[in-house]
C-alpha cells in the first residue's frame, strides 16, 4: 500500500512516546540520611555530611522509601524482585556534590508492570500502558543562575539533594500528546491516592521527561525519525503542548533534512513555556559514560515474599476499582464515576457518606458534581474545610428525594449551610421552611381554584400548562409549598369535580 500526502501536504505518521516520570516519595527524611525533605526551607539548612558527600560519611537506606516504592510497584502491576541493590551513576555537576548519584541500574526495586487508562467521556478507548521498570534514586540539589542580574556565578542550594525519587519508565506505548496527559493524570491519581507522592509539578515533586519520535509512512517507505528527549516541562499542560509541538517539528525536520534514527543520534531538547517551543539542549546523549557500578557503601535489599504480600494486602481499593464499584453498586454512569473518583479519596469518601444518608446515589452524584465541586472551585477551598458535613447534605438530599423539599428550596438551604454551617434543622428553621401538610395543601389548592376559574376550564380543555400560573401564585403565598405535590393535588381536584 502506498501512503499519500494529506491536505496539509504531510504523509501519515504516528507519534511514539515513552515517558520517564520522577516522583518524590512522601518521606519526612531523605533517602540515605535523616535530613528533612520539607519543601521551601531556607537554602542549605537541610543538609548533613552524607548528602554533602563529605569524606567518611556513610549512607543508610530509609525504610519508608522502600515501603512506598513497593506500594507504588504493586499498584502499577509491577513484579517486585526478591533482591534489589544500589549503583553509582557518575557525572559531574555542581548540584551533585558526591560526583555520582546513588541510583539503581540492573536490579531495580520494581520490575516490569503496566497502568490501565480508563476510557474517556470523549470516546477515547481504555488502553494499557506498559512499564519497563521503576527504580529508586536520590535527587540532586538546585542550581540557580540569575542571567538578568549579570551574576558571574551560580548559586547552589543542596536542600533537595538526597530526597528520594522513584523513577517510573514507560514503554514507548503512548501515541499522542493527549494520551501522555491521560497517563500522567491516572498515575498522579493513583500515587496521591496511595499517599506515595504529592505529585505537584509546580513544587517539583513530579517531573516528566518525554522521549518522542515519529513513524512516517512516506509512499512505500517506513521512516523512523531520531529520538528526542524533552525536558523542563513544568505542568501536565506543558507536557501535552511540548509533545504536540515536537512531533510536528520532527516531521518538518525530516522533510527538510531527511534526518532519520540511523543518521542522527538521540538529542535532548528543552521546552520553552513562554514561546511554546522545544529547543536543543544537548546534541548527543552520552549514557554510556555514566559508568554505573554497585555502590560499595550500601547493602543490598532482600524482600521476602511475605513482606511484599503484607504491603499488597494493605493497599486497599485502588481508583480503577472504585470506578467499577461505583458503576455496579450505585449504578452511576462511567463518566460520573470517573469525575468523582478523579477528585481523589477525600471526595470519594464524602460522596459515599452523603449517598448513604440520602439513599439516592444518582442525586448525590449530580449535587456533588454541580453544587459541591463548583463551590470548592469558586471558593478555592479544600473539601476538608467544606462547611457542609456529609450527613447534613445527605439529609437535605433525602428530603428532596422524598418530595418534602423541592430542588429550588434545597438550593436555598445549601447556600444557607455554606454561609452559616450548622445542622439541617437550624438551616430550615432560619429560612422559615416548614413542611406543608396535606390539609394546608388542600386549603391552598381550593383557594387557588376558586380564584382562577379560567384555569380549570383550560386544563379540562387539555391545556395543562395553564397550571404554571397557579404554581407561581402558590409559591408567593407559601414559599414552602412543593411545586410537584401542588401540581398533582390541583389536577386531582380539577378532575374530581
Amino acid at each position, binding site marked *: 500500500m502506498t501512503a499519500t500526502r494529506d491536505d496539509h501536504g504531510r504523509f501519515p505518521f504516528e507519534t511514539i512516546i515513552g515517558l520517564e516520570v520522577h516522583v518524590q516519595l512522601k518521606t519526612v527524611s531523605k533517602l540515605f540520611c535523616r535530613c528533612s525533605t520539607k519543601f521551601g526551607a531556607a537554602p542549605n539548612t537541610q543538609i548533613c555530611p552524607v548528602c554533602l558527600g563529605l569524606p567518611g560519611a556513610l549512607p543508610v537506606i530509609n525504610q519508608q522509601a522502600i515501603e512506598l516504592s513497593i506500594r507504588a510497584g504493586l499498584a502499577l502491576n509491577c513484579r517486585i524482585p526478591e533482591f534489589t541493590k544500589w549503583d553509582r551513576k557518575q557525572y559531574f555537576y555542581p548540584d551533585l556534590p558526591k560526583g555520582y548519584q546513588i541510583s539503581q541500574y540492573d536490579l531495580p526495586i520494581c520490575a516490569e508492570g503496566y497502568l490501565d487508562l480508563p476510557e474517556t467521556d470523549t470516546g477515547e478507548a481504555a488502553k494499557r500502558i506498559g512499564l519497563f521498570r521503576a527504580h529508586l534514586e536520590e535527587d540532586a540539589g538546585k*542550581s540557580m543562575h540569575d542571567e538578568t542580574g549579570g551574576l558571574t556565578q551560580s548559586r547552589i542550594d543542596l536542600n533537595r539533594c538526597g530526597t528520594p525519587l522513584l523513577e517510573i519508565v514507560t514503554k514507548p506505548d503512548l501515541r499522542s500528546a493527549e494520551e501522555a496527559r491521560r497517563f500522567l493524570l491516572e498515575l498522579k491519581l493513583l500515587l496521591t491516592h496511595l499517599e506515595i507522592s504529592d505529585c505537584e509539578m509546580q513544587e517539583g515533586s513530579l517531573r516528566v521527561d518525554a522521549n518522542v519520535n515519529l513513524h512516517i509512512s512516506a509512499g512505500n517507505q517506513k521512516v523512523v525519525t531520531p529520538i528526542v528527549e524533552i525536558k523542563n516541562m513544568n505542568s501536565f499542560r506543558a507536557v501535552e503542548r511540548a509533545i504536540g509541538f515536537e512531533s510536528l517539528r520532527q516531521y518538518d525536520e525530516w522533510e527538510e533534512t531527511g534526518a532519520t534514527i540511523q543518521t542522527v543520534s538521540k538529542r535532548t531538547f528543552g521546552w520553552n513555556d513562554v514561546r511554546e517551543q522545544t529547543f536543543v539542549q544537548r546534541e548527543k546523549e552520552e549514557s554510556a559514560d555514566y559508568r554505573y557500578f*554497585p555502590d560499595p557503601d550500601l547493602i543490598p535489599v532482600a524482600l521476602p515474599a511475605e513482606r511484599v504480600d503484607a504491603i499488597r494486602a494493605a493497599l486497599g481499593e485502588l481508583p480503577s476499582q472504585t470506578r467499577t464499584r461505583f458503576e455496579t453498586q450505585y449504578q452511576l454512569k462511567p463518566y460520573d464515576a470517573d469525575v468523582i473518583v478523579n477528585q481523589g479519596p477525600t471526595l470519594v469518601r464524602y460522596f459515599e457518606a452523603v449517598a448513604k444518608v440520602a439513599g439516592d446515589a444518582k442525586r448525590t452524584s449530580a449535587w456533588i458534581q454541580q453544587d459541591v465541586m463548583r463551590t470548592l472551585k469558586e471558593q478555592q477551598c479544600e473539601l476538608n474545610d467544606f462547611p457542609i458535613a456529609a450527613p447534613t447534605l445527605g439529609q437535605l438530599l433525602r428530603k428532596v428525594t422524598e418530595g418534602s423539599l423541592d430542588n429550588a428550596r434545597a438550593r436555598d438551604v445549601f447556600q444557607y449551610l455554606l454561609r452559616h454551617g450548622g445542622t439541617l434543622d437550624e438551616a430550615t428553621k432560619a429560612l422559615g421552611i416548614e413542611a406543608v401538610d396535606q390539609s394546608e395543601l388542600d386549603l391552598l389548592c381550593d383557594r387557588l381554584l376558586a380564584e382562577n376559574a379560567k384555569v380549570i376550564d383550560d386544563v379540562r380543555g387539555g391545556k395543562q400548562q395553564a397550571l404554571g400560573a397557579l404554581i407561581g401564585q402558590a409559591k408567593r403565598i407559601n414559599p414552602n409549598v412543593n411545586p410537584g405535590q401542588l401540581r398533582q393535588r390541583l389536577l386531582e381536584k380539577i378532575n374530581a369535580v
Partner: protein
Amino acid sequence: MAFSEQEIRQLARLARLELTAEEVRMVGPQLERILEFVQQLAELNTDQVEPMTTALDIQNCWAADQVADGLQRSAALANAPQADGEHFLVPPVLPGGNG
C-alpha cells in the same frame, strides 16, 4: 591490553582531569599494568557463580523515617571555596542540568 591516546583522553575527560601530552603517555602504561594485575582473576571459571554485589554478609540495614539534625548552614558553607552566606557559589551553569 593497550590504551590508545584517545581512550586515555576520554577517561581523563570523564574524570575531569587535565592531562598534558607527557602525562597521557605516562598514564597509559600505568593503567595497563593495573588492568593486567586485575586480569589474573579471569583465570578462574565463574560460569556457575552468581555475581556478587557486596563483600559484606549482611542485608537489610535501614533506618526509620525520622528527621535528625544536620549541619548548621555556617558550618556547611565554611569549607566551600566560595559562598554568599546562604548558597555555595560555583562558576555559572546552564539551567536544566543532568540526570
